[in-house]
């Protein structure tokens, strides 16, 4: 549509500008010619009118003394027109213009004892203009045909490229990125579609991994339960003590299943939470509650808990989320430690941030795993974790998701004592 408008404007300009310019130049030429002719007549060389010319001689009071048109003679009349006034004021002026397709020109110049008026019609000028108009019409026609061809070719080209896009998008299976040449909007669209496809493939890959890992995690305790139940069923005359022992093991596996299910539920909820209703949360209060819960676990693991909580460390979040963050970090620090180890939990604030540091001198995490530990079901040492510590690789994923939801950041680094140090920062909230 825009190109059609531009083409129409170009056609208008092509058909008008040259005509206007030609007419202007013809008028200028005619003005010069009629001035020269009038000067010659004023000098007395001739007073004979040519074809399409009228010569009138005036006395100094603008009274007509001679008129070359004998049929409509003005002799004796007064010619009171501005051109005579200009000639009288010693500023004679020649004027030429196109009137009804014919170029007319006239001038008045002073002469001895009066003025000379001369008027001329020029039909040839319009013929010249007509020829130009005809040429321009042919040029316009040629341009029009070229434009139509260009539009058809352009439309075909665009259609072809869009077809490539459509076939790329509608393919049942991903067959690689869509290739569209050029540097225009269609190429941009192809690039965006390729990016979108790549994201979708990545998401799909993550989903598959997650489902596979989740199934694996759920299957392990279920297999154990199956094995224990089979043992009870298949053993003849099984004594009560053995049955109790087996049942205790089954109960442990059920607890494990429950924990996995709970955590998966938490993660699903965190993923789906579009807008969280955030509120000011006092970190010390939450951390104190976490520590009181984990004190027994630490005692059993022979790990010392060293806490230092500053007052009024407030950030925007939810109490449940804050609890999950602190609980998981401290629990991991206790679990993956050695007897006699120390876990330090610090809460304090600087100018505009709230900080939570959980530092241990436990078994540590290899630095190459730092990037991966927040992924779901990832474990540094799978055999060890599952068997001894009851971990399921979801705790740190929950921590990270919560931290992100509260506009915070989490950093992991080796501790000076050989363990691991997690630092969580949140933007500081004024007061409760």
């Amino acid at each position, binding site marked *: 549509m825009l190109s059609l408008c531009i083409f129409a404007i170009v056609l208008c300009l092509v058909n008008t500008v040259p005509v206007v310019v030609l007419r202007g130049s013809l008028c200028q030429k005619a003005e010069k010619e009629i001035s020269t002719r009038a000067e010659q007549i004023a000098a007395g060389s001739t007073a004979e009118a040519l074809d399409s010319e009228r010569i009138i001689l005036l006395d100094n*009071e*603008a009274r007509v003394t001679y008129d070359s048109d004998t049929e409509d003679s003005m002799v004796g009349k*007064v010619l*009171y027109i501005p051109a005579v006034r200009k000639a*009288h004021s010693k500023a004679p002026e020649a004027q030429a213009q196109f009137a009804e397709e014919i170029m007319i020109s006239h001038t008045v110049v002073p002469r001895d004892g009066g003025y000379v008026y001369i*008027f001329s*019609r020029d039909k040839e000028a319009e013929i010249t203009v007509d020829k130009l108009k005809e040429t321009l019409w042919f040029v316009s026609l040629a341009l029009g045909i070229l434009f139509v061809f260009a539009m058809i070719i352009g439309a075909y080209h665009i259609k072809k490229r869009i077809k490539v896009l459509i076939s790329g998008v509608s393919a049942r299976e991903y067959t690689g990125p869509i290739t569209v040449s050029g540097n225009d909007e269609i190429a941009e669209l192809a690039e965006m579609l390729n990016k979108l496809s790549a994201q979708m493939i990545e998401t799909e890959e993550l989903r598959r991994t997650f489902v596979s890992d989740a199934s694996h995690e759920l299957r392990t305790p279920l297999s154990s339960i199956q094995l224990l139940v089979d043992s009870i069923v298949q053993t003849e005359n099984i004594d009560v003590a053995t049955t109790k022992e087996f049942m205790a093991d089954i109960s442990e596996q059920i607890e494990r299943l429950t924990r996995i299910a709970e955590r998966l539920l938490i993660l699903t909820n965190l993923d789906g939470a579009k807008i969280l209703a955030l509120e000011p949360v006092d970190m010390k209060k939450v951390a104190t509650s976490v520590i009181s819960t984990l004190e027994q676990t630490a005692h059993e693991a022979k790990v010392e808990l060293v806490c230092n909580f500053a007052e009024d460390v407030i950030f925007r979040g939810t109490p449940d989320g804050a609890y999950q963050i602190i609980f998981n970090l401290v629990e991991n620090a206790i679990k993956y430690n050695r007897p006699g180890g120390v876990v330090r939990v610090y809460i304090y604030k600087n100018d505009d941030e709230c900080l939570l540091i959980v530092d241990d001198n436990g078994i540590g995490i290899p630095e190459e795993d730092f990037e991966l530990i927040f992924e779901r079901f990832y474990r540094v040492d799978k055999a060890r974790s599952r068997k001894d510590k009851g971990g399921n690789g979801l705790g740190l994923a929950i921590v990270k998701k919560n931290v992100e939801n509260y506009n915070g950041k989490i950093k992991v680094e080796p501790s000076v004592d050989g363990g691991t140090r997690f630092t969580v920062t949140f933007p500081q909230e004024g007061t409760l």
Partner: protein
Amino acid sequence: MKRLFFAVLGVLIFTSCGTEESKVSDEPQHMQVYYLNASTNMLLAEEYDMPPKENIVNLISSTIELMMEDKGELKSVFPENTKLLDTRFEQGTASLEFSKEYLALEGFDKTTAECAIAMSLANFWNVDSIDIYVEGKLVATGLSNDNIVTEMPKVQE
């Protein structure tokens, strides 16, 4: 416009009488009086209403008296201090007698003044021609609007 009407009426009361009395119209006469346009030095008309049932001689005199005064941007075609000494109307010819200042006009300026007089008096249908005297001496005769060409003469097709 009302003020002008009374000004014209005032002029009429004090102007001289002609030799021939003839009534013109029962309605106020709408007419054009010509002045010099200061920017182009050409004539330009100004509209007036003349009183009805007035003597033609008085009407001619009033018209000439109006022409003698500048009107805003429009200038009088007459030289300064020119006076209309007498007005007569006889057999379609208006005779105007001016003071000697009129003689300062010459060339195209004289033509301009004569055209202005002829075109202004052309409002009165019974004025066929105009003669101009200066202190008793005839300086122009047979002036008429019909003899003035204001459009560019062309070649007959």
